């Protein structure tokens, strides 16, 4: 008899629970689980989805320069100094700075100068000029920002030719913030220098812009850089020669912020040292070797998988040193203090890893 009572009690309790749960579930299907306040899933990087944009207009802001407006859905926000990768129809991938308005959420603007093969061109700009017409759909990656505009009451900008593209949104932002800025804009001739009229109009009020066209006034005089106050950021984008000259003209201890668009090499580079802070050892990474390969010899059992910079398994924290990011995964914020050691390298002589 006590058995029967137990069975009846359990069955009764089960029925009650079922009724209670079922009535709640019908009124609120997601009852009764707590949720994470800031959901993680569904707000990822989109790294497995190609981002397509449509070329909606094409203009020629200067001789030999083509400006493309690219429209797409849900384009990520960006800040002055950012660039995107264009995946060209042939599969070539080239980086171009965004030079439009960051407040326009549906359009990216890029400008490219045609560089002939004889002048060191590698075919990317020719493809942009010949194949990217209105109505063409292409894939882009990014944006990324390796050239961010820091907050400052004053700025110095030096741009050479097409190197004006990342600087242009910076000028607009600096002017809008009421900063004290000046720009030296050099080029071969005024006809080849894009956005000249807009820039001169921007700087007219404060006499901020110096235009140096080589056919009129020769090479720019960078002597004024020796007197730039220590805290003022100096931004430079242009040919290697110009960036080297700016670096040399600045006082010792003041480094310019540079944007270099070199060949996007995926393997190899120069040799450098990696210090493993917690292990207490330093390893040499050869020019044709990855950080991962070099470090694995010292630290067995290191995590990695794809070896191509997309899965994120080999991500390591970087304590010191300038990173040359070559992955396709990390966000700009993550790139500040971490790297994927399977592909990324060092932009200087030495990296310190938290390993």
């Amino acid at each position, binding site marked *: 008899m006590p058995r029967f009572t137990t069975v009846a009690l359990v069955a009764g309790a089960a029925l009650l629970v079922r009724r209670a749960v079922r009535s709640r579930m019908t009124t609120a299907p997601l009852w009764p689980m707590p949720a994470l306040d800031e959901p993680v899933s569904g707000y990822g990087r989109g790294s497995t989805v*190609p981002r397509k944009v449509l070329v909606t207009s094409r203009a020629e802001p200067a001789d030999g320069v083509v400006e493309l407006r690219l429209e797409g859905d849900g384009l990520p926000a960006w800040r002055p100094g950012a660039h995107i990768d264009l995946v060209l129809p042939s599969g070539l991938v080239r980086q171009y700075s965004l030079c439009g308005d960051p407040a326009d959420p549906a359009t990216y603007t890029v400008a490219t100068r045609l560089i002939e093969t004889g002048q060191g061109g590698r075919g990317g700009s020719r493809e942009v000029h010949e194949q990217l017409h209105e109505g063409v759909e292409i894939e882009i990656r990014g944006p990324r920002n390796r050239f961010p505009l820091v907050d400052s009451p004053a700025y110095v900008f030096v741009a050479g030719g097409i190197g004006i593209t990342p600087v242009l949104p910076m000028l607009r932002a600096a002017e809008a913030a009421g900063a004290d800025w000046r720009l030296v804009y050099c080029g071969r001739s005024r006809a080849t220098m894009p956005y000249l009229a807009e820039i001169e109009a921007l700087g007219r009020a404060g006499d901020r812009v110096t235009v140096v066209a080589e056919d009129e006034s020769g090479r720019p005089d960078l002597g004024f850089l020796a007197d730039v106050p220590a805290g003022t950021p100096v931004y430079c984008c242009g040919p290697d020669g110009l960036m080297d000259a700016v670096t040399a003209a600045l006082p010792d201890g003041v480094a310019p912020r540079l944007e270099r668009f070199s060949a996007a090499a995926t393997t190899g580079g120069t040799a450098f040292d990696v210090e493993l802070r917690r292990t207490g050892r330093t390893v040499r990474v050869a020019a044709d070797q990855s950080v991962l390969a070099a470090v694995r010899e010292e630290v067995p059992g290191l995590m990695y998988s794809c070896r191509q910079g997309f899965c994120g*398994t080999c991500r390591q924290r970087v304590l010191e040193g300038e990173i040359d990011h070559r992955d396709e995964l990390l966000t700009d914020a993550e790139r500040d203090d971490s790297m994927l050691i399977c592909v990324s390298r060092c932009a200087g002589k030495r990296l310190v890893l938290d390993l």
Partner: protein
Amino acid sequence: MSNTQPAPVASEHVELKARKVSFDWAETPLHWVPGDPFTTHTINVLHLLLPAGERWFVHVYKQALPYITDDRLRADVIGFIGQEAVHSQAHDDVLPHLREQGLDPTPYTAQVDWFFEKLLGDRTLPPGRPRRWWLMERVAMIAAIEHYTAFLGNWVLNADELDRVGADPTMLDLLRWHGAEEVEHRSVAFELFTHLDGGYRRRARTWALAFSALVFLWQRGVRFFMENDPTLLDGKASFGQFVRKGRQGVLPSTPDMLRSIPRYLSRAYHPSQEGDTAQAMAYLASSPGANGGH
């Protein structure tokens, strides 16, 4: 520790490596199994569970790595981690597409995030036995879940009925790429569990937990989708529909699912006895998404 001698099938072992994938969702309709919202949403629940779930696998396995004393197994586990990380990203990237089509999954995924990150996350336990116990418990749960991911992977690779009814090719490719990698690495979770613990009682207990959690989360997910689908007036989900769709072949069949239970609980079980690595590798070699998205 282990009181069983499960026999792996040697020919089924391959070196594991994450593959780069690309899936363009622009052309995928809301009901990607045409005219069949129930099947669509039953499979869509994967996109709700896997981003958080597979992130959790990676999180747990990173903690288990130092306990592994077998080099080949360590390499397998690392390959597994890389593949799971990409799976998680790929399914996560489907969710914004659902949101654009008027079916915001966030109320549900926020709960799944809580489930994996808080309920099954790291707990403040004293070092030593309690901490190791909780780690082993989770390693065993992953082994049980992977039994089902391999089951589903094997099913989707052979689900010709989905092609016949005209399911969206991009979604099918995502499912089959994922399914094939699940078949490819199906032994890793179980081998890790046997290597670190392997106790039969733990295996049975965590199977029961994982199975109940999967059923609970899955039925909730289907009901959530059916009720919030903007194109359905009175969307309902029922077990009867599941059985019928399983019989039709667009979902796994219920008898097959029931038969897989005693297989996992058998003392002679080893994942390599089920599924076909060669078939999985053949799919991966031809998958558009896993070969540059073309």
